[in-house]
């Protein structure tokens, strides 16, 4: 009896994953109506328009880059990596939360993920697409990027498989492909729903073709569930490997501040940290604007905040170990890197990083803040900025002062760097706006399985 009261108390502390009172029909109608019936709002056009203009700005910046070369950027020797790689690592990290939500939480049977996995996966795709632009244009001659792929060629050469940069090519392209398949396969049953519910002939044909003729046969579902679980099982080590490989780009080198074994776990934790921040920055306005508070409840916000707290501490541990090893290794170059972070010309960025990634997120211990839309949104924004600063600190602060004083230098981004970076944010937003308008942003069939009536009663 005592156990039972305790159970009730725990259950009441958390908001439900889905508000009671919904049926298969109302869940279906509510989510599909956003795409099929709801008139496109002025707000949507403004948001899409802003995103689209920023995308155009990015294309302009890239066009000018192609004409003039990477000299228009702030990169130099010694800082050859600059904004392009900072933004690449930042974007690809953001993508990681989507796969964590869709694959790892599926394997852990965290059914609350069902209402946020769809748009988190879309976020992954668009973030990886934004990330992919940077190494491509950083090569200087992006039209020759296919040279990184091992294909038989008249130059009679093959790529160098001992280089972490080539591992990246394989890791990121595999990640994008698997994320795309996972997302599309999850969409197929919902596309069938849209096909059957749409009144518009053109929409019926388009959704019908995309749904591949899905009809919900028990045999199909059985194989579908197998494939979905297997994909989740494959995507789980994949997502952990992607940021590990990204961290190898640094850790395999001998640059002080990069050559450390803490990098892989610390990069993966940082990726999930920033990814959940982006999930919250998307989920909070979306659930408000589309009145989806019944499906994306306070429970989801709370859980995301808790994941950020946990991964935030792993990241803090990473900073701690970096600093400790700078001192303990006895290596004067590592020690100098630490000194340079604390006292060098970019020191204010390091302190800003500590404040925004360690100090301010501790506010998430407060339960009230974890359920406050505005508060959570602002903390997520601070974390995203902090994680961007982390990559800036790692890349620029290690490169600009390495072994020889004679080769020291400073790095200042130019307007073209900023235009490209802000432009990719615009491209990401444009894609997100299109996504919420034309595809169901919450997985309808997975929401149905959360309802009590989905349970099969034994006779």
């Amino acid at each position, binding site marked *: 009896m005592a156990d039972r009261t305790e159970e009730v108390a725990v259950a009441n502390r958390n908001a439900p994953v889905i508000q009671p009172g919904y049926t*298969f*029909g109302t869940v*279906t109608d509510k989510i599909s109506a956003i795409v099929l019936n709801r008139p496109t709002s002025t707000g949507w056009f403004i948001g899409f328009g802003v995103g689209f203009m920023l995308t155009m700005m990015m294309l302009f910046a890239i066009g000018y880059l192609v004409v003039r070369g990477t000299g228009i950027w702030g990169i130099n020797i010694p800082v050859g990596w600059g904004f392009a790689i900072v933004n690449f690592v930042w974007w690809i990290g953001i993508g990681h939360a989507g796969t964590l939500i869709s694959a790892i939480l599926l394997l852990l049977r965290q059914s609350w993920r069902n209402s946020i996995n769809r748009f988190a996966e879309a976020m992954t795709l668009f973030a990886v697409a934004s990330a992919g632009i940077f190494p491509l244009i950083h090569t200087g001659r992006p039209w020759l990027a296919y040279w990184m792929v*091992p294909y038989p060629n008249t130059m*009679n*050469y*093959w*790529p160098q*498989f*001992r280089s972490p940069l*080539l*591992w990246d090519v*394989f*890791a990121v392209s*595999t990640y994008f*492909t*698997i994320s795309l*398949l*996972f997302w599309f*396969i999850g969409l197929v*049953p919902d596309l*069938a*729903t849209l*096909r*059957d*519910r749409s009144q518009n002939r053109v929409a019926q044909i388009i959704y*019908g*073709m995309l749904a*591949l*003729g*899905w*009809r*919900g*046969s*028990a*045999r199909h*579902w*059985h*194989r*579908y*569930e*197998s*494939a979905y679980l*297997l*994909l989740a099982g*494959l*995507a789980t*080590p*994949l997502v952990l*490997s992607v940021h590990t490989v990204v961290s*190898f780009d640094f850790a395999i080198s001998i640059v002080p501040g990069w050559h450390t074994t803490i990098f892989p776990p610390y990069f993966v934790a940082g990726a999930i940290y920033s990814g959940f921040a982006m999930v919250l920055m998307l989920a909070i306005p979306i659930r408000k604007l589309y009145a989806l508070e019944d499906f994306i409840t306070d429970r989801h916000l709370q859980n995301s905040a808790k994941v950020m707290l946990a991964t935030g501490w792993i990241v803090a541990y990473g900073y701690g170990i970096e600093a400790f090893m700078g001192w303990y290794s006895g290596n004067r170059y590592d020690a100098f890197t630490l000194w340079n972070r604390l006292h060098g010309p970019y020191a204010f960025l390091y302190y800003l990083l500590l404040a925004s990634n360690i100090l301010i997120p501790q506010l998430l211990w407060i339960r009230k803040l974890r359920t406050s839309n505005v508060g959570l949104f602002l903390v997520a924004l601070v974390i995203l900025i902090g994680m961007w600063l982390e990559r800036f600190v790692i890349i620029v602060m290690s490169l600009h002062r390495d072994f020889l004083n004679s080769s020291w230098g400073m790095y200042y981004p130019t307007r073209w760097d900023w235009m490209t970076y802000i432009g990719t944010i615009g491209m990401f937003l444009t894609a997100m706006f299109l996504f919420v308008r034309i595809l169901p942003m919450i997985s309808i*069939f*997975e929401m*149905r*399985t959360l309802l009590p*009536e*989905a*349970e*099969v*009663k034994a006779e």
Partner: protein
Amino acid sequence: MKTTPIYGMMAEFDSASDLVAAARKTHEAGYQKIDAYSPFPVEELAEAIGFHKNGVPLVTLIGGLIGGLAGYLMQYWMAVDSYPVNVGGRPYHSWPSFIIVTFEMTILFGGISAVFGMLALNGLPMPYHPVFNVPRFAMASKDRFFLIVFSSDPKYSPTSTRQFLESLEPRSISEVPS
């Protein structure tokens, strides 16, 4: 007068529990060529219609193995045989460096095999299918549950199958023209 050939007989149910119970009874009554349709995966349903074997895991395993092997052998051949480059005195067959691409290729081929293997085994894409001829079947992607006995079943007969399905107390019964 031209008669349309019949693809099967379809019964409509209100809940997953009803459909599972009906499918089980139909299977036990000796009907073999049956199928059930639900708007979300129902674990018990595949078993109820007597569907156990599922080729997707095997296809995924084979795909993954091929990907991994191809990835490793590709790197071995390129780095040792076709285009040997001395990098800091490392052996040409520097296998630890080859692990990552081997791993990524395993995942890539495994994942692609899982998805396309599933679609192929399901016979998808198939934009047209006779069950779509039943107007009420549009509800199968929303909140209704359907059971079908195919006319190719040896026990199928327009009258006795209808009687049998009626005994399951469905919401409605319709013939599916092919």
